[in-house]
């Protein structure tokens, strides 16, 4: 069997490799090329050099959106992971109905971002109308609105990963610790957390990139209001691309390339740091 599979390995890899090339490599190369061009559609681009990049870095709204996204990501990474881990801990205890709770917590993740954005907008605005305000009143409202929305959506997903990690911890190890007289917090910090380090690595990576890439929820919930102060990077790129004439599309493209590279770099650094700890 193994031999047959080895022989046909290219046949198996080819479809996925082709899809990866068509769906990722080619668009990415095109995107990098287009960021040096002025264009209306992708097939009629004119090379203009690094002008787009200069424009992109001169744009103060872009820098603001980067800072806003960074702050947002820091807050959501901590919040989502702490909450997801806590919920996972609770739902791995022998309590009645854990399966139902796991399903319920996971469900928000199945709803699309745009729908969630509009539903939460109605909820927040309904609540804020008691004090005669809306989400657009200040960027602080929009910020926390987005934080609540994203946490609500993602905690369930991360929880599933943590549950898998926690269930993998050998029971005898915990039992031995208990016999040796380890306290609850000692067991948590010395045994459980180090044991689920692989889950932490993957969850941090996912929530980190999700936070930076957030688009649908941002568009639907605040659309950047008031006055572009809750605009995140992805939305800023989108608005640059479509907000002006074709001459500006290259600038949007340049921002997108900068963003993609920066995000990839952050992801790699994060994986290096946390994965290194996981090995210990």
């Amino acid at each position, binding site marked *: *069997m193994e031999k*047959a*599979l080895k*022989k*046909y390995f290219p*046949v*198996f890899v*080819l*479809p*996925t490799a*082709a*899809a990866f090339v*068509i769906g990722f490599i080619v668009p990415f190369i095109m995107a990098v090329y287009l960021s040096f061009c002025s264009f*209306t*559609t*992708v*097939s*009629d681009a004119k090379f203009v050099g690094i002008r787009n990049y200069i424009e992109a870095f001169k744009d103060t709204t872009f820098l603001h959106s980067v800072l806003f996204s960074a702050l947002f990501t820091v807050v959501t990474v901590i919040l989502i992971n702490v909450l997801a881990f806590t919920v996972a801990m609770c739902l791995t205890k022998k309590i009645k109905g854990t399966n139902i709770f796991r399903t319920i917590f996971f469900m928000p993740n199945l709803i699309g971002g745009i729908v969630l954005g509009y539903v939460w*907008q109605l909820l927040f*605005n309904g609540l804020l*109308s008691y004090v*005669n*305000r*809306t*989400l*657009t*009143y*200040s960027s602080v409202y929009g910020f926390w609105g987005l934080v609540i929305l994203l946490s609500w959506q993602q905690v369930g997903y991360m929880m599933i990963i943590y549950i898998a990690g926690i269930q993998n911890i050998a029971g005898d190890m915990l039992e031995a610790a208990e016999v040796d007289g380890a306290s609850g917090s000692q067991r948590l910090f010395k045994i459980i957390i180090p044991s689920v380090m692989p889950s932490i690595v993957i969850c941090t990576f996912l929530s980190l990139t999700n936070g930076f890439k957030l688009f649908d929820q941002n568009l639907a919930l605040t*659309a*950047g*209001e*008031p*006055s*572009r102060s809750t605009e995140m990077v992805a939305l800023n790129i989108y*608005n640059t691309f*479509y*907000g*002006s*004439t*074709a*001459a*500006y599309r290259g600038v949007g493209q340049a921002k997108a390339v900068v963003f993609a590279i920066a995000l990839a770099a952050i992801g790699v650094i994060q994986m290096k740091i946390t994965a290194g700890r996981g090995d210990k």
Partner: protein
Amino acid sequence: MRTCKKVFAVLSAAVLTAGVLAGCGSESGGSGAGGSDAAGGAAGSASGSVYYLNYKPEVDAQWQELAAAYTEETGVPVTVVTAASGTYEQTLTSEIAKTEAPTLFQVENQSWLDNWGQYCYDLSGSFIAEHSTANTLSMEGVEVAAVPFAMESYGIIYNVDLLNEYCALENAVISSPSEIIDFASLKAVADDIQARKVELGVEGAFTSAGLDGSSNWRFTTHLANVPIYWEYTKKGITTATSLDGTYVENYKNLIDLYFTDSTCDSALLSGKTGDDALAEFCDGMAVFYQNGTWAWTADNDMSAMNVAFLPLYTGVPEEKDSIGVCTGTGNFWCINKNSTEEDIQATLDFLEWVISSETGISTMSGAMAFNCPFDTFADVELANPLFTSANSYEEAGKTHISWIGTESLPTENWKSNLSSALIEYSQGTGDWSGVEKVFTEDFKTEWENR
């Protein structure tokens, strides 16, 4: 056994490959979605085909029917794809780059030709251009780049029955809707209705001036036309890349009226949608509603109501009893010059049929309720009462407000800047100077950045 393994391996690979190919297959199928398939065309004698990228979601079903009727009659395949609301340029951007690009697409106005003019086939001498009764668009090197196919008007739509009811109240400030002839009389009526809303059984004089993305264009594009129109008219020009903002104060007059004499507190407007305003108007919760002829369709709630237009009075001295509603068009047909010769001819034939055949005329003027600026429509009776109301102002010798302001708005960015400034003003976190800045400084910089 070995063959068995082999077969298994090849089969699995085949399944995987099929999955990928199926993905590609459905994508290419998607680009031509929505219309008749190519098989229908092969049976016909003509070799070209038509692919129309439609701008207006509200008449998508009618276009599909019209396309099917044409295919049935001539055998020429016509595909109509409609871009989702507010995403026309995005859709056009990706569609026009494809091998099977739209043969027929739309532009809103002259400034769209900056982006899309390079795709415009010269329509001079074509049937649609010859029979047009409105101004076609031209650009350098192309005599007729775009031909308008539907005129539209906007202003303040009012519920005639409700306003008459108000007029019948004791001490009403007017005795007939026709007495509203300028901003002062409009304000007097609106303020009085607002003050006596319980007596009249309404929630406010105006529907909520929602500043959500689904509604803000009523103020950032349509109402914004008015101050610019007056400035241009005063200066005797039709376009400019900077504004003095002389009439922004007048824009404020009407905005303030919308914000105060409203169904809700102005601080809540940023969360109000276009549907909210329409529902309030159709449920009789408000008397006035700023929108255009497109708000009326043969099958929506408004069709059962008695509605008419008031001009957008903003307190400019010249407006008194002498202006009509804002009339113009944002609907131009363009033919893609990169299409094959057969397809261009097929598209020209299709358009000729649309504006001259009985089926075409009755669908355009009936089911779509368009006011089509072609001489072939001269005898057509307008289904939409708002057109009748708009025309009545012109028949009474009043000048309609043209769309020169809207047509010279620099970018989408400018509109969202204005929307942001209005939101800040509505919720009290910013003052009016923010709006003034958009009309003066931002207008200039956005033009410079183009």
